[in-house]
């Protein structure tokens, strides 16, 4: 089935199911992610909010990937000018790492692409097309993460707009998108984010009979635990062992390919619930609230561009980045609070733990990777653009501490730069290691291209969970999550010694007994029908240090799913469960530990 992201104006693509046509213009815009044949190129939807669209990326770990291809039918013959929206993702005094070319009807256009240091339309060249059809191919030249957002063909030599606002407006005009998605679906509960928290919420709510929509922007469930990112799940099960065992992981080393087995288990288990309506590869892009109540969440299919509206009385933000709350106007925090704000000092570590003055220097994001030793020697290309980041560092394996944060970078807004920095760190360190005798047979087996984030926005609930709750071992009447894992907060190693690589972190572990998280940290203070579960729950920076691991976030999800069931039963919003139905809710939670697996 061909995809919607293809737009024709005065020229017609017969391949499309949805083809807005305008005779007023002379161009055809083809969203790269909608190419029906993607070859070795991957759809990357991680940075839509910053650069405007999902894009295709040639993540070949140094081996050029197979071509991506599409075909369009043209209404008019003539000489077409062709542009690609792309960027040089590691600019500097070297050849750009992610180069590619465009071929039209098997003819390569003149210019190599991926050269400018920012997202922009690069001119690929012109081509005389005398047929009614044009076969368009993206030809990767380097295997190092060349990227293409869109291709534009025009009889005019006028390039499309580049600036973000003008481009977004132009895109909408080209796509002739109506203001609202054409399709609206209604459920009892809409959960956005299919990480461990979102999956647990979906299962819990589904078991209580709710019709649940689970919207997730990847093909695989699990988020950081998925086989695409491969962080193992840590923490305890609390009262939700039965549910969490359906979706968690074994304790294999981070990055292990064993993640694939747990992936299969998780996907099968979640899909086994008939009343969980899964929307994989759908990324939410808006949530609108009226009178402090979310009215709907809008999402877009990451490859086709198709849109859908999701309505329900209750919503769960399990996006990790708190997007639903952010769009809906929920209060949120970001950054490290002053140590004095909530009394979160640990004198032994001082500023590394919690600073006197607040800042935005949060824990970083990771990219995990794995190598293998092959039968024969394997050459790895020279990567000067990567060595510039890796410097002298050598490595043939990654781990959790391959992590990047810097105080001028925002873990959401600068996510692409952070991911790219980690790719450079990995390729550079591996390249350095390959220069050493004995490493000839090492080859990269897998490098994730998805950021494993630790910390970003934290939505504010009726209760803000902090380090003090851990130290004081606070028990609450609404304790729904229990954990005993150490509070584990990271800092960048180069803070103590600037000669060390900027992409390695160190962890500080505060050992503790059991501590508890109240239900009141799992719904928004000011958006009355919004739950949150996962790392975007209501907590301080240090409060997040312990419960950010995924069995704990899974507990949050399950607790929220059961609360949603009671909300439906009494037709109330999340806060009322604490105020009026707490006993029944806590009984429901308590019962979970006695249900046999």
């Amino acid at each position, binding site marked *: 089935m061909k995809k919607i992201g293809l737009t024709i104006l005065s020229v017609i693509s017969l391949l499309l199911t949805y083809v807005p046509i305008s005779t007023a213009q002379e161009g055809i815009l083809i969203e790269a992610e909608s190419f029906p044949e993607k070859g070795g190129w991957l759809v990357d939807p991680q940075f839509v909010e910053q650069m405007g669209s999902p894009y295709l990326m040639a993540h070949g770990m140094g081996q050029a990937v197979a071509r991506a291809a599409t075909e369009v039918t043209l209404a008019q013959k003539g000489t077409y000018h062709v542009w690609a929206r792309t960027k040089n993702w590691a600019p500097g005094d070297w050849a750009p790492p992610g180069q590619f070319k465009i071929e039209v009807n098997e003819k390569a256009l003149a210019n190599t692409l991926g050269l400018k240091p920012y997202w922009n339309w690069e001119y690929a060249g012109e081509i005389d097309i005398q047929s009614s059809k044009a076969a368009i191919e993206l030809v990767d030249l380097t295997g190092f993460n060349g990227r293409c957002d869109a291709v534009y063909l025009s009889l005019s030599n006028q390039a499309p707009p580049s600036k973000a606002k003008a481009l977004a407006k132009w895109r909408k005009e080209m796509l002739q998108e109506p203001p609202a998605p054409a399709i609206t679906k209604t459920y009892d509960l809409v959960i956005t984010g299919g990480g461990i928290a979102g999956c647990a919420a979906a299962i819990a709510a589904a078991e209580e009979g709710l019709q649940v929509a689970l919207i997730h922007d990847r093909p695989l469930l699990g988020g950081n635990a998925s086989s695409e990112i491969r962080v193992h799940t840590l923490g305890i099960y609390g009262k939700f062992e039965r549910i969490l065992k359906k979706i968690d992981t074994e304790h294999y080393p981070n990055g292990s390919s064993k993640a694939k087995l747990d992936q299969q288990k998780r996907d099968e288990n979640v899909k086994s619930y008939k009343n969980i309506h899964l929307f994989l590869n759908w990324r939410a892009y808006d949530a609108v609230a009226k009178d402090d109540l979310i009215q709907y969440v809008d999402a877009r299919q990451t490859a086709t561009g198709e849109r859908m509206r999701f309505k329900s009385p209750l919503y769960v933000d399990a996006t990790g980045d708190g997007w639903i709350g952010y769009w809906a106007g929920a209060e949120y925090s970001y950054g490290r609070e002053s140590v004095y704000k909530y009394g979160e000092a640990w004198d032994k570590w*001082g500023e590394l733990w919690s600073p006197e003055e607040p800042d935005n220097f949060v824990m970083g994001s990771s990219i995990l990777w794995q190598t293998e030793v092959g039968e024969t020697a394997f050459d790895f290309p020279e990567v000067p653009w990567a060595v510039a980041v890796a410097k002298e560092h050598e490595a043939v394996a990654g781990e959790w501490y391959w992590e990047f944060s810097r105080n001028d970078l925002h873990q959401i807004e600068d996510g692409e730069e952070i991911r790219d920095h980690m790719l450079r760190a990995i390729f550079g360190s591996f390249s350095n290691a390959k220069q050493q005798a004995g490493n000839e047979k090492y080859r990269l087996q897998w490098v994730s291209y998805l950021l494993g984030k630790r910390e970003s926005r934290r939505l504010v609930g009726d209760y803000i969970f902090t380090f003090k709750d851990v130290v004081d071992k606070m028990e609450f009447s609404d304790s729904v999550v229990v954990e005993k894992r150490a509070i584990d907060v990271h800092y960048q190693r180069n*803070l103590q010694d*600037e000669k060390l690589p900027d992409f390695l972190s160190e962890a500080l572990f505060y050992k503790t007994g059991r501590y508890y998280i109240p239900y009141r940290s799992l719904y928004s203070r000011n958006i009355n029908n919004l739950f949150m579960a996962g790392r975007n729950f209501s907590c301080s920076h240090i409060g997040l240090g312990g419960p950010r691991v995924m069995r704990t976030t899974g507990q949050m999800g399950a607790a929220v799913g059961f609360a949603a069931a009671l909300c439906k039963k009494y037709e109330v919003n999340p806060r009322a469960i604490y105020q009026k139905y707490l006993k029944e809710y806590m009984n429901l939670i308590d019962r979970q530990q006695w249900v046999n697996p």
Partner: protein
Amino acid sequence: MGKSLGFLLALSLGVIGFYGMTTPMNKPLFMRMEKEWQQVAKQQEIGEFYNPDSSLSHSLSLLTNEHEEPLLFYADILTPVCIDGTCKPVYIELYWNLLGQYVGYAIDKTKPLTKFDHDHFIAADYEKLHELLLDNNSILSRRKLEDLFDVNVKPGKKVTYKGVEVDAVTGATRKEIKESVIEGALYSCYTLWHLVYGQVTGKIEGYLQSIYSAELAADFLYSDYPEYQFYALKQMSSTDYQSHLSQVLHIIESSAPLIRNYILKKLPKDSWREGDFSQGLYALFSTIDLNSKTLLLQNLPNAHPTAATLLSQQVMVMTKNQLKMYLAYLEEDADRLTPTIRDNLAETAKSETYTFTYLISAFLE
């Protein structure tokens, strides 16, 4: 059991025997504060600290110079290391700085440290022990001893702990532990690390607070040790910062990013405006770490007006976001874009090596 008790009794007597000594016995094998150690003239017992592993208390001493100015903390340790009921004594003299941070150790050459197979430590082992003890965030801090042994490893060696082979460590942490401990001496490493970072550190911190004076604060601030400088900076008021700006600038220039960041976040607004200081500070922009650069840019509105001009000559070391911050600052008030700054930016915009010239060009347009 009886054997252990007997050992403890002998050990206790041994410990008592050390009391009354005036200065440390042996020259340290490793010592980070050699200059201070050379000046030691007196030893003053200030209390005891408890070691839960051995159930023993050890005497803690302050070492001073002849004027009784504090230099180091010191403990002469005799502790048992026990595996499966067999205990061996470890003799070691430990040193901490005035903040309670480990700085070195000494041994009696007639009582060398040994491994479990009774081999003596070799030179590299002693060095590795020093490195381990310097690591205040060692993996040993967050693992129980029994967690360090891999229960799946088939017994093959003679020495076991609770029936499990010594020095076989679990897969996930094997590399980290292997790198930090001495092969064949895991338990000694574990015991000594926990001794160095145990109750003693709190005792020293408490004692330091009791003797911390204006004189000592000045010594710390002007010392060559970053950790002393940092301690002093943390105790300082806004007025103190203002009175010591030249030394504060020196510390910013010479210290690690962590300390720089702390100062740049804590500096009172008045200090930022002080001409010479501000000039000295922003002249460092090109050479200091990226996180400190960001803090300098964030404080531009507080800084002396010359700071923006100084930065206009150093744009090429800015990251994309830093450049955006700088340009946003200039954009906020038309007066800030002086002819000099404009010229400097225009010159940078011509650069063929700086990645973000396109942002400058767009700004100048």
